[in-house]
């Protein structure tokens, strides 16, 4: 196992390096740079000084020089300065990351809380009315765009019923660190979480349902039944164990989701997170931030795959990788 993990990590290095070159080249191929359009916010901005700044910030150097500089700093943990935010990328990401992780984590947990029971019900009693209702819900959730759904949730529960706050991550008037503060934080999480979770369940439900239906017909289940194992135990011991495998394996990948965040939900609920930051940085050509974010999510995908493999080998002793 250890050698497996080590090997995977070693393979990661060239993968990430290649990714970084591609990202860097693509970023540089985009027209404009962080200073393009600076005059929009500041009409008196002086063009000569802008040129001088480009020189100072190294925007005019050939790409390999810029890349070399960037990589050297990156491996030392320095991701550079964000021109737009005038801040080290590391501290900028730090601020946003906690928000995004919190939101994504609750969303993910809620998705599982909804999807696993529903998937089991739909699979166990397939073709019943409950199954049909669940499948219908699946169609609905897969077809509904998140930006519409989030707005509807916001208008119904935020504005009409006024049950939940309508945006932002916390009520600023509440003292930091008090009990009320945490309640307020949790309260602010409810709507964005539900908006993401309720329509994010389709994949998991469908996987689980199909797998259960498949497994139900397998020989070992028939054997179990023939042995006289009670129906409930057939499901918990024999079917579910097997059917939950792909879900467990999928969990590793979900890590990627954790840090990429949702642009739409963050934007609609004015929730400062990484998803929005990514889009904003692309639009403003804030390359240091874009590259850092892509590298991080790239690394997350690779690590996520590895985790998936590890989880799989733990839950399914038949799969042993070395």
């Amino acid at each position, binding site marked *: 196992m250890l050698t497996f993990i080590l090997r995977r990590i070693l393979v990661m290095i060239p993968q990430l390096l290649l990714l970084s070159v591609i990202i860097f080249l693509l970023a540089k191929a985009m027209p404009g740079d962080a200073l393009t359009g600076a005059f929009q916010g500041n009409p008196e901005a002086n063009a000569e000084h802008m040129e001088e700044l480009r020189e100072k910030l190294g925007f005019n150097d050939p790409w390999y020089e810029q890349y070399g500089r960037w990589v050297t700093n990156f491996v030392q943990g320095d991701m550079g300065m964000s021109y737009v935010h005038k801040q080290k990328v590391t501290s900028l990401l730090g601020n946003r990351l906690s928000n995004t992780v919190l939101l994504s984590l609750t969303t993910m947990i809620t998705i599982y809380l909804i999807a696993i029971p529903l998937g089991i019900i739909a699979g166990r009693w397939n073709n019943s009315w409950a199954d049909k209702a669940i499948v219908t819900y699946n169609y609905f959730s897969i077809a509904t765009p998140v930006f519409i759904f989030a*707005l509807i949730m916001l208008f119904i529960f935020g504005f009409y019923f006024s049950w939940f706050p309508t945006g932002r991550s916390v009520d600023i008037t509440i003292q930091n660190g008090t009990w009320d503060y945490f309640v307020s934080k949790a309260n602010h999480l409810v709507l964005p979480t539900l908006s993401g979770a309720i329509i994010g369940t389709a994949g998991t439900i469908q996987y689980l349902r199909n797998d259960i239906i498949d497994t139900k017909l397998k020989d070992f289940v028939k054997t179990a039944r023939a042995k006289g194992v009670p129906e409930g135990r057939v499901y918990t011991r024999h079917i579910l164990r097997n059917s939950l495998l792909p879900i467990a394996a999928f969990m590793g990948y979900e890590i990627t989701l954790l840090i990429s965040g949702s642009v739409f939900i963050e934007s609609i609920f004015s929730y400062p997170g990484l998803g929005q930051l990514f889009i904003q940085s692309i639009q403003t050509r804030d390359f240091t931030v874009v590259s850092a974010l892509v590298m991080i999510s790239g690394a997350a995908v690779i690590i996520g795959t590895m985790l998936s493999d590890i989880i799989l080998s733990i839950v399914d002793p038949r799969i042993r990788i070395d």
Partner: protein
Amino acid sequence: MGKRQLMLLISLMLALSVFLAACSGKDDKGDADKKDPGKDEGKTEETEGEDAAEEEELDFPLDVSNTGETIEDGTLNYALVSNTPFEGTLNPVFYSGRPDAEVMQFFDEELLATDGDYLITNEGAAKYEVSNENKTIAITIGDNVNWHDGEPVKASDLLYAYELLGHPDYKGDRYTYTIYNVEGMEAYHKGEAKEISGIEISEDDKTITINYLEASPSLMSGIWTYPVPRHYLGDVTKGEVTIDEIVESEKIRTTPIGFGPYKVEKVVPGESVQYVRNEDYWRGKPAAESVVLKVVNTSSILKELEAGSIDIAEVPADQYLNAKELTNVDLLAKIDLAYTYIGFKLGKWDEKKKENITDPDAKLADKRVRQAMWHAMDNEVIGEKMYHGLRFPATTLIIPVFASFHDADNPGRAYDPEKAKALLDEAGFKDTNGDGIREDADGNEFVLNFASMEGGEVAEPIAQHYIQNWADVGIKVQLTDGRLHEFNSFYDMVESDDPKVDIFQGAWGTGSDPDPEGLYGRTASYNYSRYTSEENDRLLKEGTSEKAFDFEYRKGIYDEWQELMVEDVPVAPTVYRYATTLVNKRVANYSIDQSSDNYYPWKWGVTQKDPVK
């Protein structure tokens, strides 16, 4: 088969139910309004009475209708309407985006106040005196002006701003004309001098004297008077901190100080800011006990206003129609510091000489063709149909905001397709082969490539509208690459004089200085049309000359310049725009009129605890 049809039916029903839910949402709104009509009635009448009395020229009021007494312990809820978090660089020297400026307005301000023309006055926290043929300005800071930590605002704090702006390590975009025009600034900027020789500080550290290389009326509107708290941030010139450290510091991010009416109590990065009253404010006691600023998404801002959770918000133009329907708010609007224009490429930017070179053989070199194209554009329709009256046809290149410099008698070039055709005929652009499209004066095919930016749902219809307008007079115009361009690639093409672009639609924010040199001068790289002429050079120079300190003289020069631009048409201004602000009816002493006393945040207050719903 039967199953599938059932599925289809169910999904259809679901889809329908979504629409129904949306509809019922609207009905609810109606109900909510009906619930407490008594509450608003008295106030509504006030509004109407007041509105009529206000400004006749404008269709919109500039001041709120509520004239009641503000309460002592009120909280003002201010919305920063944006789809992205604010960056949070809360220092006038270092910030880059407008959102941050909105955050700063409550706790920081300029030492010199400005009037309706954005010219400096002696009404602010400091007084100024000009001497030495307008080349020297002495600014004396009032005795009662203190930073939020109790330290007095000193002349050396203002000097500090200049030291930061000119510093070799400074990476912001505010090293502008009014900064590098200071004597000795260039040497300091290059690192050759330790101090800025042109700035002197008085003994008592209350008066700062700034000497300029050349006298220019631009200084009267563009002079930098935001001080920076040296004692709080640390001194870069003494090596206590570096500029990068200041920029990174929490002292300009979550615990900034200023000398404005409110102190920053707390910042939740990117989403909200809480301010409390600054009892020590030099103008007096600020009206509200606290202010809460929240970032609100454009899609929910109207709902927030309707629910009363937001008192003041600037609302994007595309929501105007719905905004009009709200009954618990006042709708204020004024002309924005910006205009949209169509530019005609007439030459190239010479990188070596750093100046614009006009090409006499350019495709659009004949000014009659440009005049015709301006006459052919129906901007009235754009303003009416696509912006619901929030934009209106532009006439000259100095916007009406500069009331004293905008030539209201200059009609520009109104929509007149017949005149356009006549001008084209006169220029020899005739349809020689009978296909309905004009050929150029030599009988060659004449097709123009039009670059326009994407953004918002009206960008495409507007571009198509102009193309149709020009087709109506026989000029064939097509979109560059057959599509609209993203912001960055658009400016990339226009800046580099890409031959794929003959005409382009852009917009300028004008800033507070009416001087157009930066956008239309011979050495201005933002002069994207690359238009130059002797007369233009002369007028722009005169407009900021020593003589132009004489108001009437400057006005005369700018009238002449506006006339020249209407004659030569390097760019055709298309529309001016209104910016709309919605204000809850519990807010009093609020104005968006630059010359009003109520323009300043310390006056803004609420007259009752609960918002008007």
